[in-house]
């Protein structure tokens, strides 16, 4: 019995490097041998999808794209899914970054360009990248009042009042011209709820890292946020919804959400296994110590 306990107690001190190795192998395997797993679509993802899907034809989807290389693991698939949705749905969109990493507008531009080639969209007519600005939360209110005052030029240095180059901007002035606002970043800024549109006429949709998502659920319950895409899982759900809605028109090749969600599940299984193993090890060690004490008392 003690030998078994000693064996189990070793589980408590599994070397860190072993855990990393197992994790790398388990998470890497689905990339080599693709597997599909069923995916339940959460209410908040469906709600965000429906709002974007039902955008009024004379309005634009506004996307605050603040993700950077540090958060691209989760935010890139989310952003790409939103952009693909807008382009397939023929809903024009504007992208801007506020107080983000300097590389954010460039990352957004790369994704936009790739999706535009797939769906035949044109810069200036179907989307505009307004680049980076600083000064949140004040600038959020200014975007709601007069976006051209905040962004006088776009990311490509065209004037936002030059309607021959940017015809889309002719009808985009204030929040009345937005059908919804997406904030895609590691921790979406809750100041949008207070500064951008306190009357809540423009639905706010957040696209966040899974780690911080728990803190946003109360804001969904209160109606301050209407929908949310949570981490890679949210991106995979959104891609599933695109698949359901558009079928073959949705070019899913290279989309990252569904590709990442299976390795993610495998990684979770590994973590759960090691948590259980660690706990079994701890219980075995305690039992072992108790047995040793009882044996010593018996000797005395």
């Amino acid at each position, binding site marked *: 019995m003690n030998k078994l306990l000693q064996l189990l107690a070793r589980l408590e001190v599994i070397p*860190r*490097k072993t855990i*990393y190795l197992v994790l*790398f192998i388990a*998470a*890497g395997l689905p*990339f*080599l041998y693709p597997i599909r797993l069923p995916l339940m679509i959460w209410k908040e993802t469906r709600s965000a999808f429906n*709002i974007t899907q039902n955008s009024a034809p004379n309005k634009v989807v506004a996307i605050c794209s603040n993700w950077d290389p540090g*958060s*691209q*693991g*989760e935010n*890139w698939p989310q952003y790409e899914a939103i952009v693909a949705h807008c382009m397939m749905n023929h809903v024009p969109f504007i992208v801007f970054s506020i107080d983000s*990493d*300097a590389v954010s*507008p460039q990352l957004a531009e790369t994704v936009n360009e790739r999706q535009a080639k797939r769906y035949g969209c044109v810069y200036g007519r179907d989307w505009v990248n307004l*680049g*980076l*600005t*600083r000064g949140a*939360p*004040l600038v959020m209110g200014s975007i709601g009042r007069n976006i051209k005052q905040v962004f*006088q*030029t776009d*990311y490509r240095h065209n004037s936002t009042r030059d309607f021959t180059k940017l015809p889309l901007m002719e009808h985009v002035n204030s929040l009345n011209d937005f*059908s919804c606002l997406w904030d895609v970043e590691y921790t979406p800024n*809750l*100041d949008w*709820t*207070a*500064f951008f549109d*306190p*009357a*809540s*006429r423009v*639905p706010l949709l957040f696209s966040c*890292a*899974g*780690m*911080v*998502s*728990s803190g946003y659920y*109360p*804001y969904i319950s*209160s*109606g*301050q946020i*209407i929908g949310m895409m949570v*981490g*890679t*899982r949210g991106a995979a759900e959104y891609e599933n919804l695109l698949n359901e809605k558009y079928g073959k028109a949705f070019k899913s090749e290279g989309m*990252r959400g569904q*590709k*990442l969600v299976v*390795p*993610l599940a495998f*990684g*979770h299984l590994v*973590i759960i296994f090691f948590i259980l193993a660690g706990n079994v090890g701890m219980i075995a060690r305690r039992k072992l110590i108790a047995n040793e004490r009882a044996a010593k008392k018996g000797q005395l």
Partner: protein
Amino acid sequence: MTGYWANNWQIWISAFCVLSVYTYLFKDNTLYRVMMQIFIGINLGYQAIIQWRDVLYPQWYLPMIDGFRALFGGAGSPYGALWALVGGIGILFYLQLSRKYASLSKIAIGITIGIGAGLTFKSQLGRNIPQILDAFKPLAPPIVRPQPRTTLKLPGSAFEPLVDDSLAIFVSGNTIEADEVLGGVRVWQTKLPSAVTGPPRFVAEKIMVPCLTEVVQVDRSTGKINPITFTGELLGNREGDPLKVVAVYRQPQLGHGVELRAKGSELSAYAIKDGVAEGVHAGDFLWSATYPEPIVSVQSFDGIAMITGPKVSEIWEIPPPQPKLTARDYFDNWVSVVTIFCVMTYFFFSFKRRGPMIAAVSSSGRWVLMIGLGAFFGNTVMTRMSFLLDRLMFLIDDWLRPLWHQIFR
């Protein structure tokens, strides 16, 4: 092979960087530290350039230079030169580096803290008041349905009032009156030559009012009667039933999903499409309310309804459709309310918690906190794992797979 290197050298550098950073998992080492310093250096340099190119140059430098040019006879507004003051205040921050003038930096710090405090105050109110309101959740099916709230009283009208932007025109007896709908302020009032016999109607900037003897033309802005009047029949000003209207909500997600129907002095609301709220279907009765007199007309705009009677009109804030809650929803609400209560008890330190009851509630608060933190932990694992997978995907798909094909094709 040359073609492969020409296309993939950047991938190799990226893969080398990724693997160098991951060597830290084995142990802290020089390669990892060198790579970390390179990343920080590149990032800072890049940030500095973008900060100037995308923010300071177009938003501060150009308006300032244009302002100075205007001061010395150029085109444009000279007020742009004031941006120089902003630059001056910004430079004050750097005086912290000087012992002699460090105190001047407090001006810039004070301004920043003042702005920050003001913004935080607004931000906290805007974020948290809806949260506090949402903490009051229904724990059982309602006995009374939601009721509209009267926000403003306006004059009555014998016919459906004319509404144009924020101005409403009311006619009663031989009086015509214009009021601000959202403020309740009377803009003008005019006596007509005889009693009004039909609803008024806009014709360009004039209001045509059918009276007993003639049709009177009233100026929309001033209320003055135009001497030119004519006789004849005036067409109605709107189509449809004035006692039936589709409610317009401010929130686009609620859309135009509710119909208000007036009968006598009773106003009722019905859903006109499925899903205006969770579990609500087209035709479902939502609420009803009684008006103090027979209703002449109902109009709706910008989240409100204007109910008009012969003597008085009222602006009602119409309640949004409420979701039909199931037993599970009520259970969730109980969990939510009990959790709030327990956690607040746990964090209540104003006086000593005595008695087994309070101790039990407080202890439950700690347990539910732990469950909440467990959910946070699960999500943390998901995020960290996603970041790892992103790099794994890069290493396998972008680096190893092309290499494999290159070697074994």
